[in-house]
């Protein structure tokens, strides 16, 4: 990972952002990410991201929850220590539906949130670069990753033509690291200069 070189452009309107994303992709540039203050439906498809499978994971966690509840209660009440409640059968499934349902929901929700945090690498004390602090306010920030073959000036003017404002080159850490936002911390003290073009 480490520090990489990016060309970063700001957009203030989704109506300009969408065609710009399409233009950039058509021109063959690699979009590192677009940071937005709120979810924009369709932007993920415009950027060519694949659909998330988080809900499938949630379904699997839910099934595990149901199986855990029914399995454990069956073992506890019918195998390990059968107790006679008013002559009713030891294996009395209808009475276990509430707990089976609750554990299904519990496992699915907790599992999904943990998976979400893992996939997005979110946790307390995690610190990340996100180019422009205004991207959580009112600015849509598009970051294009530069390789050693990228012509910076060409890319900058290309982005400006597509409608981006304040286009600039930034060297940013793409990975997360442990740190507090109150203190200026950098994962790598020294910035790695981009490879010169031969």
């Amino acid at each position: 990972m480490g520090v990489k070189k990016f060309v970063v452009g700001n957009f203030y309107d989704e109506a300009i952002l969408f065609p710009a994303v399409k233009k950039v992709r058509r021109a063959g540039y690699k979009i590192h990410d677009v940071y937005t203050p709120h979810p924009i439906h369709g932007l993920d498809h415009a950027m060519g991201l694949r659909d998330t499978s988080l809900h499938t994971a949630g379904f699997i966690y839910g099934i595990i929850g149901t199986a855990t509840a029914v399995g454990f209660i069956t073992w506890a009440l019918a195998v390990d220590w059968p107790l006679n409640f008013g002559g009713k059968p030891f294996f009395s499934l209808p009475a276990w539906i509430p707990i089976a349902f609750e554990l299904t929901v519990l496992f699915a929700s907790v599992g999904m949130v943990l998976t979400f945090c893992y996939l997005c690498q979110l946790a307390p004390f995690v610190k990340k670069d996100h180019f422009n602090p205004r991207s959580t306010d009112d600015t849509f920030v598009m970051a294009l990753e530069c390789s050693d073959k990228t012509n910076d000036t060409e890319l900058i003017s290309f982005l400006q033509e597509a409608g981006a404002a304040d286009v600039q080159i930034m060297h940013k850490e793409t990975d997360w690291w442990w740190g507090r936002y109150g203190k200026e911390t950098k994962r790598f003290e020294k910035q790695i200069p981009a490879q010169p073009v031969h």
Partner: protein
Amino acid sequence: MSLLRYESHVRAPLVDGSKDYHQVTEDICRPVEAKPSKLWWMGFLISAALLVFGIISVTIEVIYGTGQWNLNKTIGWGWDITNFVWWIGIGHAGTLISAILLLFRQGWRTGVNRAAEAMTIFAVMCAGQFPIWHMGRVWNAFFVLPYPNTRGPLWVNFNSPLLWDVFAISTYFTVSLLFWYSGLLPDLATLRDRAKKKWAKSFYGVAAFGWTGSTKHWQRHESLSLVLAGLSTPLVLSVHTIVSFDFATSIVPGWHTTIFPPYFVAGAIFSGFAMVQTLLVVTRKVLGLQEYITIEHIEVMNKVIVLTGSIVGIAYLTELFMSWYSAVPYEHFAFFKNRLDLSSPYGWSYWIMMGCNVLSPQIFWSTRMRRNLTLTFFMSILINIGMWFERFVIIVTSIYRDYLPSSWSTYYTPTIWEVGFYLGTFGLFFTCYFLFSKFFPVIAIAEIKHILKRSGDNYKKGNLGIETEELEEFGHKNLEHH
């Protein structure tokens, strides 16, 4: 893009005034970033004082036992379980607003969901206190969990509604908390990136989990919210259903009815919305958020109140009919002698319940009344008094005179420590709410931005022309990007 953004002008705007994204951030973050007002300090200190009184009351109960309360062998559940059911009922509106209304695509939920969800979490925290401290030997509270123990292991009774309650409420609390906090992450990141003070940067930095607003993260976040909403919808219905099973699966006349689950759920939504109104009518005024929590929002919630209040009313009447129709003398006694009859010891509580829950909300059939803030505030308090009495009626009038006259109880009044415990939960609730309204954005910023260009006042006005546009002209303007 305006094609995607269009919403009929017949629908009232959800955000008033001329707003852009930055203005939304400014407006909602202002109360968080400003110094707390004198009013805030006053409210906070009163709540904290109530909380302290509650802690003292509970401490005395723990030291001397549940004998400190006026419960006896006949009235084993009194104020404590009444309060438990009351709080848990209040804790239903938040998840209803955030989950069910999300699935129904009700845009207006965005203005109120954050505060309502927070309220839900605090109400469930208050509710949980009652069964726990009611145990008496609270140090044995972990006995309700199925853990391997040295007594066999002897497992808990999974067939018992009281154990279902343990699972239902702990699940409900956990899921509501996760739902609320995952929705908060983007807004905490907004506060983090705006923060000027060092402590605020650190606090919101830690709390925001390193949220960046990456498109992929938003995509997952949307999926997470949708599935959590889908899971919470049956969950919120199940929780109060299971609470009603605590009563309905017994054979006590007055409890032994199959109508309880839907009747309890409707009552829970009813009282929950009333509490949301109590809080939001004040919050919007004090924090200056009238443009985000508009009169429209208040009106819509009053519509929910009149609907659920009427459902509750039908349930009361159905109960009466079924008790008459059953021809069971004990049922007759419980309903017609112990409740309806004003001359019976607790007859008055039944009629307070009827008056507050069934008759008074009918005023909201009138649009003018629904849009009257003072009346809304007054009604919201009245409804919660009524809903408290509903639980009191169900619990106390059913058990204080049941099958055997020799075991009938004398008139039950709470001791100061029972009342203190109840007031203490008010302290807990409002202390939490005051802290929340100071340190967290009370409106979901990202969600407001998401609907702004469709339902914001100034954007809707800009879209008015579409309604009279020729088809060709419309296509020319809107379809070029696609």
